[in-house]
């Protein structure tokens, strides 16, 4: 598992499941499983903006970018491509 996925899992576990173990496959929908709701999505966005120093544009607030670990990793990866700060973390990704 890469670093982005594991820090996302940790964030979801602590903030949406209040520390409970997470039975979630990387491709599964966070919305479908009831893990996030409308305010959850906003918290998730704030987290990735702070953690990866990216700005999520309004148009980017769609399930294709945010609704599973896979989608989030892909989205953050794409956003980070040109950012030196983020490249550091990306290099650790397996």
């Amino acid at each position, binding site marked *: 598992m890469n670093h982005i996925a594991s820090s996302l899992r940790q964030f979801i576990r602590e903030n949406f499941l*209040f520390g409970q173990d997470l039975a979630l496959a990387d491709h599964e929908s966070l*919305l479908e499983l*009831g893990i996030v*709701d409308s305010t959850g*999505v906003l918290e998730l966005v704030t987290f990735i903006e702070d953690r990866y120093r990216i700005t999520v544009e309004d148009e980017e*607030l*769609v399930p294709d970018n945010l609704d599973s670990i896979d989608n989030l990793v892909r989205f953050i990866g794409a956003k980070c491509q040109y950012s030196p700060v983020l490249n550091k973390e990306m290099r650790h990704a397996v």
Partner: protein
Amino acid sequence: MQVESFLELSARQWPDKIALVCGDRRVTYAELEQTANRLAHALMAEGVGRGDRVAVHLENSVEAVVAVMAILKAGAVFMMVNPTTKAEKLAYVLNNSRARAIVVPARKMPVLETCWAETPHLKLVILTQSADATKQRASPPAKRPDHNPLRQDGCVYLEELLQRHADDTQPPQKRAIDIDLAALIYTSGSTGNPKGVMLTHLNMVAAATSITTYLENTPDDVILNVLPLSFDYGLYQVLMGLKIGGTVVLERSFAYPRVVLQRLLEEKVTGFPLVPTMSAILLQMDLRKYDFPHLRYVTNTGAALPTEHIVRLRRLFPKVKVYSMYGLTECKRVSYLPPDQIDARPGSVGKGMPNEEVYLVDDDGRRLGPGVVGQLVVRGSNVMKGYWELPEETDRVLKPGLLSGEKVLYTGDLFRTDEEGYLYFVGRRDDIIKSRGEKVSPKEVENVLYAHPEIAEAAVVGVPDEIFGQAVKAVVSRKNGSRLTEQDVLRHCAGRLEDFMVPQSVEFRAVLPKTSNGKIDKRGLIGGASV
């Protein structure tokens, strides 16, 4: 007239019209009617009788709508259970209503299994596939752990039932009449246990008729609904859509507002029901580049829309009628403000709806004039039959009215009227919290908190919140030696309460303030030092 007739009549008149859009599925009236008929025959064949309660524990989906209509066609009573309801409360509701059957997604089976042993009346479990399930079944449903032979094979897939009744596409012979129950809707009460609001076909047809009258709905309307069908505001969008022969676009949530707005455009939506939380989110977005040429009206209920929101919504949708409304599950809807009044009286929720009478009374039941605060009373065919098997609680809210023998609804909500009779909400007589447009009983949350072995005292209050309207806040004191954290408390709550009831914050105090008679002083909780 019965509720399922909405679908039957529209299917006869517009068989090829799209009744329901859900994800990438588009269902015509004829398809919806025939599928509901097949399931109705299946329910009856499986022993569901007239007046039996059947729970629907599904996300917004085609299956949920099919299930509701099929249950009614079978002469039974449907009960929507919020998709985020946890095992303990699910068991409570199933037992309280003595539900005979339930429709659930296959992936919820483990949750249902935990309350299996405690629900002796439940004979039939109908499983729907989760949206991402392939045609291959993941695993067959588990057998019940008990040894009651009646209950061994009570699990069946919805799809299988429909196949078994593939040819039964005609509606079954009607068994119910319009004063029979159509639905039980569980609502939070100040006592902590949810109460089943008994609604007859007559109640629901009357409410749907009044509402579609003042909204001036036509068969050309396309209604987009993101609210759960377990919330009567969401449920009625579907019932009214079917009644008017319109199209209902069902979404599962408002988590991705841009996606919903895109749907609004693509589907040429004309009617968009909101709760204040949704309008707060919309108003935070930059919507300047959007134009919704087809949108005819938006509605708000669930909690009062702040005047500031109304002004900004009007600016955002200048050509759209904004309906500010008020209601409660016990009679569905009470009032609406005619859109031409909204700029003049943005703080009002209007007047009683068509075919309904409302007035204010003092504590002795005397009618009040303009300007005086009193309890709102509702008189109409939309008023519920009572609370399920709670005669005393029923008598507390359904009291003798103007005509001898009739009962009118005492809402428990305080209002005043202006000189022209427009209603202004003042407050509630109990401590119910309105969060995200839904009712939260502090007592229900407190009961869950007290069930935690390390919590000594707990009180739950509503605090003003930009997005939620009111946010649920728990104030607790720990037992000696406890190192309980906020996260521990929230995890405990999230495992037992619906999402909208889980507190947004927890404050720890050494002791909770008390009133002179020893009760926890909730007013004293606003302010005061935390530890």
